[in-house]
């Protein structure tokens, strides 16, 4: 690959920002284009929606329930035979008088009606912004409803303005109220899979591989899970977490409370999968697991080798530039590495160090985040070396952040692979850089922030229906989609003939 002007092909390089003050690290500057969600969004969308068997009632005006209905993560778990409410979105639909006089009676009535219609075993109530302000006592209503209807009613006060991340509220609630209440016997090698960003086909692939090796998946959180399995989650011996930030504190508390050991697990990219599977077998220290793991790895890699090699040939010497946020970038980097492509990653979004969690940043960074501090039991130091934050480029100009090229400090770069990670470039610098790089393919996740992207080059766009590239098959699916992008004939007509110079 071309490494810009750093002059050391193949080495580890990165362009880093120069001096930074704490002021420049404040996370949410009013008036900037931010992509952040809110507490409700994470609580409901990330954690609760994928759990089958829970009926979610959004307490608040109708909007939040409308937008959170049917996200990407909302998929149906066909093998779960309990009640499933994934195609419904319920709201108490507060109006102006409820905001003035309080929405408690409305919530009570809504629970009554929901129980009559859906007869759910578990109800989860998610509060939206106005609730926190008008002060409805959602918790006690939930308790009353539990007694009245004999079902479990969980309440989450995930008002959108709260700086406590919603996934934290939700996972904590589930750990306190759900986990540890089940008595189902588990298999010989019981594990939990906890992590965001996987669903559908990747969940199926994970299940397939673990079944073949002989692990027993006890419970799944933030994936294709269901509430009955989660009740037994404490019986697992190992927590696999596939996400860096969202679950860091959950697995730590689970370790303290239930004594479940933990392991980071990455299901994207061949190297990651192979290493993860081997590490898992190490943790259980069972020779039969090791043998079966080895057998599975050689069989699965053998199956896709021919196809991958073919793709590699076609993609030889191509240069890829990633304009994605850090989490997606990491995935694409691993996948591209499998195809022998060394990507240039231009990061623009929040970057967290692996294992670190957003809240620790928040409590450190936020000048007024008192609630954040109250919730924060596990403290992480802020790693200023690897801490990047989403700010518009010209704001960086304004605060006089200089960009310099560090060529001779290989250890400073903690990027997974030998690639170029560039953050916080000005518009001009991006254009300059792109001129040098001459990329063949762009991954345009945050494209709107960079006008310098050439209209001529092709950009990668995953099909909405088969977006997931996890698992052994994922590498092939990704290669196929990459080839689709490169071979797409539409790029030819990108520029009108009268505009060509």
């Amino acid at each position, binding site marked *: 690959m071309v490494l810009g002007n750093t002059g050391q092909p193949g080495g580890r390089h990165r362009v880093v920002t120069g001096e930074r003050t704490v002021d420049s690290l404040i996370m949410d500057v009013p*008036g900037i284009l*931010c992509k952040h969600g809110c507490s409700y969004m994470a609580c409901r969308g990330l954690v609760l929606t994928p759990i089958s068997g829970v009926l979610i009632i959004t307490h608040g005006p109708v909007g939040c329930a409308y937008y959170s209905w049917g996200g990407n993560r909302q998929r149906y778990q066909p093998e779960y035979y309990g009640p499933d409410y994934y195609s*419904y979105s319920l709201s108490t639909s507060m109006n*102006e008088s409820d905001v003035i006089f309080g929405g408690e009676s409305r919530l009570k009535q809504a629970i009554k*009606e929901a129980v009559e219609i859906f007869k759910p075993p578990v109800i989860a109530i998610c509060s939206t912004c106005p609730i926190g302000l008008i002060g409805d006592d959602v918790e006690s209503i939930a308790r009353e409803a539990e007694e009245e209807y004999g079902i479990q009613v969980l309440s989450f006060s995930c008002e959108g303005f*709260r700086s406590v991340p919603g996934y934290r509220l939700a996972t904590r609630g589930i750990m306190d109220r759900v986990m540890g209440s089940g008595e189902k016997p588990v298999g010989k090698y019981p594990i939990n899979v906890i992590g965001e960003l996987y669903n559908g086909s990747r969940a199926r692939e994970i299940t397939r591989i673990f079944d073949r090796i002989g692990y027993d998946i006890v419970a799944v959180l933030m994936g294709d899970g269901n509430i009955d399995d989660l009740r037994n989650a404490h019986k697992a011996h190992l927590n696999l977490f596939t996400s860096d930030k969202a679950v860091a504190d959950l697995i730590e508390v689970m370790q303290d409370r239930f004594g479940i050991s933990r392991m980071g697990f990455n299901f994207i990219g061949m190297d990651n999968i192979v290493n993860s599977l081997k590490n898992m077998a190490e943790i259980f220290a069972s020779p039969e697991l090791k043998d079966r793991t080895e057998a599975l790895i050689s069989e699965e890699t053998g199956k896709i080798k021919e196809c991958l090699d073919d793709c590699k040939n076609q993609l030889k010497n191509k240069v890829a530039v990633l304009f994605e946020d850090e989490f997606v970038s990491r995935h694409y980097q691993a996948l591209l590495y499998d195809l022998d492509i060394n990507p240039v990653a231009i990061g623009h979004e929040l970057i967290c160090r692996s294992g670190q969690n957003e809240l620790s940043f928040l409590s450190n960074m936020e000048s007024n985040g008192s609630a954040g501090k109250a919730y924060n039991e596990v403290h992480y130091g802020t790693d200023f070396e690897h801490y990047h934050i989403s700010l518009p480029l010209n*704001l960086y100009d304004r605060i006089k952040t200089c960009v310099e090229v560090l060529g001779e400090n290989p250890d400073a770069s903690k990027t997974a692979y030998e690639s170029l990670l560039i953050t916080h470039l000005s518009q001009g610098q991006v254009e300059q850089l792109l001129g040098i790089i001459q990329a063949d393919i762009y991954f345009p996740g945050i494209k709107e922030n960079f*006008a310098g*992207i050439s209209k001529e080059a092709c950009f990668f766009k995953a099909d909405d229906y088969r977006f997931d590239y996890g698992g052994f098959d994922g590498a092939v699916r990704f290669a196929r989609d990459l080839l689709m992008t490169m071979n797409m004939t539409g790029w030819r007509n990108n520029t009108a003939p009268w505009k060509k110079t």
Partner: protein
Amino acid sequence: MLDWTPNERVKRQVLCINPLAGCQPLGAIYAAMGMHACMPHSHGSSGCSRYQKTMLKRHFRQSLKVTSSVLKESAAIFGGEGSLQTAINNIFELYDPEIIAVHTTCLSETIGDDIKACLYEYPLVEGKYLIHANTPSYTGSHITGFSNMTSSAIECLATKRVPNHKAAILPGFVNPGDMQEIKRISGLMGCGYIMFPDTCGVFGQRAVEKINQYPAGGTRAADIIDLGNCKKTLAFGKFSSEAAAIRLYNKCGVPFELMDLPIGIEAVDRFVMQLKCLSGQDVAGELDDEREQVIDVILDAYPVLYNKKVALFGDPDIVIAVAEFLASVGMIPQYTITGTPGAYFEERMKQILANYNMDGMAKAPADLFDLQQWLKKEPVDLLIGNTHGKLLARAEDIPLVRVGFPIMDRYVQSNMPVVGYRGAIRLLEMILNSLMERMERDHPENDLVFI
């Protein structure tokens, strides 16, 4: 899918299941997109703008820029006015828009921020404008928000000076394709016009050249100011345009004509007759031909259309206009529902049904759970509505024609009109194709013919 909906009608007082309408800020953002070089600003927590952005992005398949005040706990206690000031400063400095359109959310409305006072004091540079609309999420729907933002923009900007002999066209909450078609018809009739808001050329553009460059489309600030000098306002849709038209009348004395969206035949006829009055020209031959084509299609296809029952759901203005069109081609708008509250919806639907001697049920506000229960009792032949009806279509096995907002699972939709005579042909094509595909699917194999 949707298995828990009981067959027996359930009485609900408060619970809303599968809502049909978003909250006001969604419409406010869309209205702001219809102004040139405008940055919509959401005065609320960060999640609000993200949700609405995602919704619009999925419909238009184009990412858009919305800034947020990012209110946190401290704002809930001390008020968010300070954040708003900082935000306005930052936006002008970083993104350099001509207009900032501030709308509120349920958070800032419940806190009680006085954004009007806050923005009134802001020292504006010449050529820059601030617009603010109160859009609390707990009243109305995204249509109300759209209406609030357009009327606020008129209130803030429109000024009466020298008459410009143009028509002010308020197109309502419709796609850019529809706005384009309304403009084309007005052009054909020789009528000068200012359309506001106007999202043609805002979506569907590829990467811009410079970082702070705004898309070429959108009503320019000068044109919004000029609205006050127009001869007459043509306001489409009572729910999305009436408030703005009244505001323009009160402020600048521009008389207005409130009409249904020009969908189908009669509504377009009314629109064309208005244009004829305004410009004093004869109807263009091109429009005449287009109308002939629609009539021809209807005459050809009426055996397929006649007495087919349809359930319609979506935004009120579109539902009313489409329902009238369906009635006028012999189909029965059996169930019509909308998520936007307002007594006018049911009144107008009653009028339309009475006019064509048909029976049907109309309800506002209603949700898709209501509709499913009605369908379980008495099914229909066709659903017409937005993407959210997809689950319903599958569960009840009824074909769905996608019209309205949001349509997240089909391409090109937002570029194509449903208004005007061309839109009528397109609607007819979609409806006929769905009906015939369904008919052929269910037809006995030995009876299948080519014609």
